[in-house]
């Protein structure tokens, strides 16, 4: 009798199992929506951005390598000039410089928080860093405009606007991102690594530099690439301090421009469907492809780190 009941209960599809099927459908719908949005954005930007090359017959290689950008006027060859190299160089320049400057600071700060002043680090520094992440970029840009640019003008001369000012503002902006991801990476190193190293007679510095940091490298690299992705995509703050001159930068303190700064200053002044507009979409496409590339790099680093 009881035997039969238990058997029947096991063969009945329970309410839990049915609800689970519904849950699966809901979560699938959520991911489908996200995928749809991403595909739609890619399609839209790509169709607009590629129109420059298909409709307006601009040579792709010219677009990437020519240095003169004036899509609204006709150049000496009877064609508008859409050479995006100055912006590409500007974007990569500020991104890499900011990352190079930020990395040692981030690692130093993270080591202080995790290995040296652990209590203090968790209680005070972590919230401070989280706060820095949340400051709107226009505030960074405004401070850059009123502090960094005049300072550069006073020290190096010129206008003060340029890649150096952009680098400085971006360095401050990505520092908290890179630092907090480095902190996470160091926290994830198991404590028995430290014990093992200490028990072999290694000093604190040797343990930290050779064992802990070594094991945290994939996580730290991921943090740096995240920071670079943020720097590459940052528009407002950079636009406020870089000078917005679409020409090849001669040095770090002469006005330059980035893909994002040209986009934000130009997109409102062009007519949809015109070459000027399409050329801006092409810049947007480059930005999109670059963020895709950053993503792939992050995944690749994560995978390589996991294998070890």
């Amino acid at each position, binding site marked *: 009798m009881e035997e039969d009941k238990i*058997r029947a209960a*096991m063969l009945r599809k329970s309410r839990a*199992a049915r609800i689970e099927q519904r849950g699966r459908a809901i979560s699938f719908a959520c991911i489908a929506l996200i995928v749809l949005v991403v595909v739609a954005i890619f399609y839209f930007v790509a169709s607009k951005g590629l129109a420059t090359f298909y409709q307006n017959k601009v040579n792709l290689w010219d677009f990437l390598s020519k240095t003169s950008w004036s899509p609204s006027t006709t150049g000496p060859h009877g064609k508008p000039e859409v050479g995006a190299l100055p912006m590409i160089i500007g974007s990569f320049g500020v991104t890499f410089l900011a990352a190079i400057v930020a990395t040692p600071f981030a690692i130093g700060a993270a080591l202080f928080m995790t290995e040296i002043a652990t209590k203090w680090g968790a209680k005070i520094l972590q919230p401070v860093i989280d706060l820095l992440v949340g400051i709107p970029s226009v505030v960074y840009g405004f401070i850059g405009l009123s502090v960094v640019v005049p300072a550069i003008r006073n020290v190096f001369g010129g206008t003060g606007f340029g890649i150096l000012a952009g680098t400085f503002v971006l360095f401050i902006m990505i520092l908290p991102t890179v630092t907090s991801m480095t902190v996470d990476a160091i926290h994830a190193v198991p404590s028995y690594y430290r014990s093992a190293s200490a028990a072999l007679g290694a000093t604190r510095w040797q343990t930290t530099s050779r064992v802990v940091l070594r094991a945290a490298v994939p996580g730290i690299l991921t943090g740096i690439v995240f920071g670079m992705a943020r720097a590459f995509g940052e528009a407002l703050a950079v636009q406020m301090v870089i000078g917005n001159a679409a020409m090849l930068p001669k040095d770090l303190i002469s006005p330059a421009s980035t893909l994002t700064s040209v986009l934000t200053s130009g997109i409102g002044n062009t007519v949809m469907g015109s070459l000027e507009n399409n050329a801006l979409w092409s810049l947007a496409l480059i930005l999109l492809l670059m963020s895709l590339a950053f993503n792939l790099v992050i995944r690749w680093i994560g995978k390589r780190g996991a294998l070890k």
Partner: protein
Amino acid sequence: MANYSLDDRFIRELPGDAEVAVSTDDLRVFYGEHEAIHGVSLPFERYKITALIGPSGSGKSTYLRSINRMNDNIYGSRVTGNIMYRGLDINSNAVDVYEMRKHIGMVFQRPNPFAKSIYDNITFALKRFGTKSKAELDEIVETTLKQAALWDQVKDQLHKSALALSGGQQQRLCIARAIAMKPDILLMDEPASALDPISTATLEDTMMALKDQLTIIIVTHNMQQAARVSDYTAFFYNGQCLEFDETRKIFTRPKIQATDDYVSGNFG
């Protein structure tokens, strides 16, 4: 290392009057293409303790986990063959795994209490399966903790975090949590491997005390433990059960060379 033939096997039939709680028939477990368990057929007698022994990687844990279909959750794993429980093949999509696991509980190698109070750890599943009355829950918490030999130590701190308990206490809490569902069968995957000898002894007493209400299948690396607590012993090697017999016979007169070498410590 000596290589023992997987074809050289001895599986003792249960006595005619023995009641079988659960049995497997040609159970095979695959991880992707790799076959981890090569068709194991074993009966487990009701209200007895059966120990699964064997070297690391011999598949005893994999086999144990497949009995209440915990391998379902592992991506890429596939289990074929029959698992007969109450005249029903529970290795089938027609069977509701949640309902089935009410009857076939499990205790894991590392104590894994939830980050909840002792009380909530035990009532977690009960509440989800519809036991609502406070009095009833209190009653079950008390009886199961007593059965798990933990009541006297924790009765004044039932609402404190389970994570504050010692390892042995945590493991007994996990047993209390499992038997609160009143399962028929309790699967134990090396439950004492993370415990000190005193906690282990208490755990073994608990198992012996539980024997009159449920069937226990235990994986253990500790051969003295298998000899002390179990009625039957199955020796696993390379994904196959080479010998299954009464524990007494396995440890005194094993019929298979591999078993003999393993229990006498001459293995490998």
